[in-house]
């Protein structure tokens, strides 16, 4: 028996650890560093119908125990992602979760319908929470009704289970979670970045050319963990948790709070080997805590 194995809608994970969307490109760079088949899954960079060049630079800025980014969903567009990236990824034994983005419902539907047919795409992640684009993205993620409708529309065309990625920039994340569950979502991924800003103290100008950016990294972990804990109580679909995960203790905390699997974003930049390292440490940590399997651990904070 594989103690780390985790079964989620569409995803038969050999372990519950995967890189988060946008922090791992389409895997090619990290493939030079380690075997991608070690990963539980890969959440690839957001894909839109057309090629996007993203926002002007600077696009990143460091903040206390965190960073801001405003990449702006730069990606080669649906066709090239399917032809070049996904096909290339087929050489690895790893399920792909395709992060789907767009300006309009039609955009999401177009990408979802096509990309869900790729043989190695086992699930979609609807990015209704990107804070760095003027249209689309977060606007879908802050209104429960719109989120529900979008989920429904995508579910109707997707060949694989649909996860919805929630934004933390809302008054009541539970409400959005329940709405997407009602819309037919098979799972939830959370959280995307918190909207933040940094100024250049000398000039007073925003450091990020886009003015604001998304805050990620250890700084946001307490917010992410609280939201996972909260949403886990309110929905019955599984959660893939993320936000500031960098250490094995962080992994345990998110699983305890009710996430069935976790994603690692910013920490890949700090240590490009972080995902395989965490996967390697997990069994040992389970022993230390007295749990046989990852599944046994999931949600333990709610059972105390």
């Amino acid at each position, binding site marked *: 028996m594989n103690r780390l194995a985790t079964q989620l809608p569409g995803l038969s994970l050999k372990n519950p650890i995967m890189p988060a969307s946008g922090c791992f490109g389409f895997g090619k760079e990290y493939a030079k560093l380690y075997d991608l088949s070690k990963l539980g899954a890969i959440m690839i960079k957001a894909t839109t119908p057309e090629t996007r060049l*993203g926002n002007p*630079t600077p696009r990143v800025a460091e903040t206390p125990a965190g960073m801001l980014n405003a990449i702006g969903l730069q990606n080669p567009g649906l066709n090239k992602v399917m032809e070049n990236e996904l096909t290339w990824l087929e050489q690895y034994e790893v399920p792909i979760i395709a992060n789907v983005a767009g300006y309009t419902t039609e955009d999401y539907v177009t990408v979802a319908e096509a990309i869900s047919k790729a043989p190695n795409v086992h699930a979609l992640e609807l990015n209704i929470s990107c804070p760095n684009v003027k249209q689309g993205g977060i606007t879908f993620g802050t209104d429960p009704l719109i989120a529900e409708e979008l989920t429904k529309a995508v579910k109707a065309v997707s060949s694989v289970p649909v996860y919805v990625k929630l934004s933390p920039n809302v008054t009541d994340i539970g409400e959005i979670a329940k709405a997407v569950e009602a819309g037919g979502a098979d799972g939830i991924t959370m959280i995307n970045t918190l909207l933040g800003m940094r100024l250049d103290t000398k000039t007073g100008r925003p450091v990020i050319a886009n003015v604001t950016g998304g805050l990620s990294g250890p700084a946001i972990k307490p917010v992410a963990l609280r939201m996972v804990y909260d949403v886990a109580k309110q929905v019955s679909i599984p959660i893939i948790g993320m936000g500031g995960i960098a250490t094995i203790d962080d992994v345990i905390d998110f699983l305890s709070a009710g996430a069935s699997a976790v994603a690692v974003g910013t920490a890949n930049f700090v240590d490009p080997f972080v995902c395989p390292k965490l996967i390697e440490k997990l069994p040992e940590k389970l022993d230390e805590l007295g749990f046989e399997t990852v599944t046994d651990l999931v949600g333990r904070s709610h059972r105390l």
Partner: protein
Amino acid sequence: MIRQEQMEVVQQRSIATNIFELTLTGSLVLDMKQPGQFVHLRVSDQMEPLLRRPISISTINKETLEFTMIYRADGRGTALLSEKKQGDQVDVLGPLGNGFPIDKIEAGQKALLVGGGIGVPPLYELSKKLVEKGVQPIHVLGFQSESVVFYEKQFIELGDTHIVTADGSYGSAGFVTNVLETLQDDFAVYYSCGPTQMLAALEKMYPEKEGYLSFEQRMGCGIGACFACVCDTTEKIEADYVKVCSDGPVFPSGVVQV
């Protein structure tokens, strides 16, 4: 191959006001291929400061497994780096990116090397490699003022060296372009690293020459995955953008929109 290694500090010393020379040792040195490549350093084991810092490789010594960097202690991260002492460990990711090509020039030809401020360090290893090859380097190095001039002697040993300071406190006064105007342009290839404005001026000055320019951008991953460090391109190449970390930092002149 890109590797991550805990490398040991062999020496750290201040060589000008706020400018430090740091020598590390470890087997990662064996993978360093080209002058102009860089490393990505963690400056602390804590989560703050969080991100790695990109620093150019300034000298490579494969025999001793040592390499040297020169950097300005400017913000919090580099200030922390400057506190590292002999025997301390530094978490290094590298070597990264593509450096200055030395196969674009022949023995006997002249090369123009133009550096500005903390853009000077990578030119040192480049110059050494060019000299080894039989190329004759001409160095034009610009600094803010006398207090931050470094490595003059080292460059002189390798070839003609012109120092220029913005405030005129050392060498000639003005910008590197002021010096360049006074020099013959009988060089085959020019190489440069420094502020983008300087790189732009060079491209304008030598539109017909073959040139290689090293660019800077804020970085996330440093390995090409996060799209933080992109630059727009000109019509000269097909790609709509390039990534400084993995496609660069060195690009042929005219490729990056400046």
